[in-house]
């Protein structure tokens, strides 16, 4: 006997793959943004986040601001927003046309959440790019006060969440509470270090103030990883868990 909803389930499967790819796109945006910041690479930052509206879109009018040339190319942040709307629309259509229940409904719900989280993550990437513009070219101070380690951990959580979404393998997200605790500790350690460094040498303020912003962005990204993990758990088992 042919399955009644064969077509619908194929659509759900394809939808999950689209959402998965979108989350990978967003995560790469975050990863590349942090890399742009780490190496103070304005070209890469521009490719992701576009220019800073006031002085980048058109070349050569930077009024002493760092020059940022933008090629005629859509920055990734624009694609991020467009794709998010499109995927949300697709999810709503699946619900409206098929009235899914049980695991189908939970899957679509999880997809919608992941779309939202992915967009947020991509936008934190964009914000990190904007921080890149604020610092002069050159080198960082104090090894970025531990931000690279925090970025690595935050990104690894997102990677594992996205893998779990695709494979339904809950082992990937089983240690998220502990990993999030580490993120929180890092966040406060970086905060305190930055304050101390700024007190000792006010010349470090432009750097440390930027580090504090990124500290916060990375903590938020890990939080999105946890939220996503909760939704994946719900999608797979039907039970709600509270991570952290």
């Amino acid at each position: 006997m042919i399955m009644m909803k064969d077509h619908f389930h194929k659509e759900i499967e394809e939808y999950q793959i689209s959402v998965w790819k979108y989350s990978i796109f967003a995560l790469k945006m975050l990863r590349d943004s942090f890399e742009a910041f780490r190496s103070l690479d304005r070209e890469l930052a521009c490719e992701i986040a576009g220019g800073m509206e006031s002085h980048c879109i058109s070349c050569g009018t930077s009024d002493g601001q760092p020059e940022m040339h933008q090629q005629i190319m859509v920055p990734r942040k624009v694609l991020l927003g467009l794709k998010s709307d499109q995927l949300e629309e697709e999810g709503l259509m699946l619900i409206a046309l098929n009235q899914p229940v049980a695991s189908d409904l939970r899957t679509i719900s999880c997809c919608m959440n992941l779309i939202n989280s992915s967009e947020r993550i991509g936008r934190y990437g964009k914000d990190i790019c904007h921080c890149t513009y604020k610092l002069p070219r050159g080198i960082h101070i104090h090894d970025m006060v531990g931000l690279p380690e925090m970025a690595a951990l935050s990104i690894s959580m997102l990677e594992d969440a996205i893998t779990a979404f695709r494979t339904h393998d809950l082992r990937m997200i089983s240690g998220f509470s502990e990993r999030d605790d580490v993120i929180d500790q890092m966040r406060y350690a970086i905060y305190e270090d930055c304050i101390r460094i700024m007190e000792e040498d006010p010349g470090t303020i432009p750097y440390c103030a930027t580090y504090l912003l990124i500290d916060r962005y990375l903590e938020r990204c890990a939080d999105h990883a946890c939220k996503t993990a909760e939704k994946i758990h719900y999608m797979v088992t039907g039970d709600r868990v509270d991570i952290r």
Partner: protein
Amino acid sequence: MKQQNNALETQTLNLYYGSTQALIDVDIQIPKNKVTALIGPSGCGKSTLLRCFNRMNDLIPDCSLSGSILYHGEEITGRSTDVVELRKRIGMVFQQPNPFPKSIYENVIYGPKVHGMKDRKELDAIAEKSLKGAAIWEEVKDRLHDAARGLSGGQQQRLCIARTLSVDPDIILMDEPCSALDPIATAKIENLITELKEEYTVVIVTHNMQQAARVSDYTGFMYMGRLIEFDTTSVIFERPKEELTENYITGRFG
């Protein structure tokens, strides 16, 4: 104590049509003043189970059953049960609206009249109360003596519900009450079902999964004569425990 919260209950109910077994060890509890939906593929036994509750299966030759059916804790499968009285207490609404070829008014007071009521004033009061209860009073109050068959399908179905209410039941069984109706009439019946549970216990058999999800508090999933899963409707439609249920409601039925 707990039993008193159940309007109906079956215990290891087995039912046979001749040598074919239609219900297998069904244990179900229908809570009072709630809407309970029975879902499942055609032939799973849900209508058969529904008909057991007011002994409509008595009318089918060759039908035999074992086990218990309790109505407010009282056994109703025995010979001593007054079936006429039972069907007064447990009314039924069918898939196809089936008004009598009489006026709207005559349809509604048919039951009380058969049960011996003659007083015109009393009958008028019952007609109004029942038609109001079935949310059709406003539409028919000025033409009570028109032919019932002249009403639309949705109105006819609500008239049939009014006819059921007229004998003052406490349980209403509905066997796919909306499957012959358009979406607007369906919405009216669904609203009505939600109102009815204030005073009555409703058991509804439906093939429309969304309808079950919308109107019921509890849902039972049946398959091949067995009650596979029974739980609150939110659990059944959000995270059913049985794989069979999951496969059925998501349409992954092989």
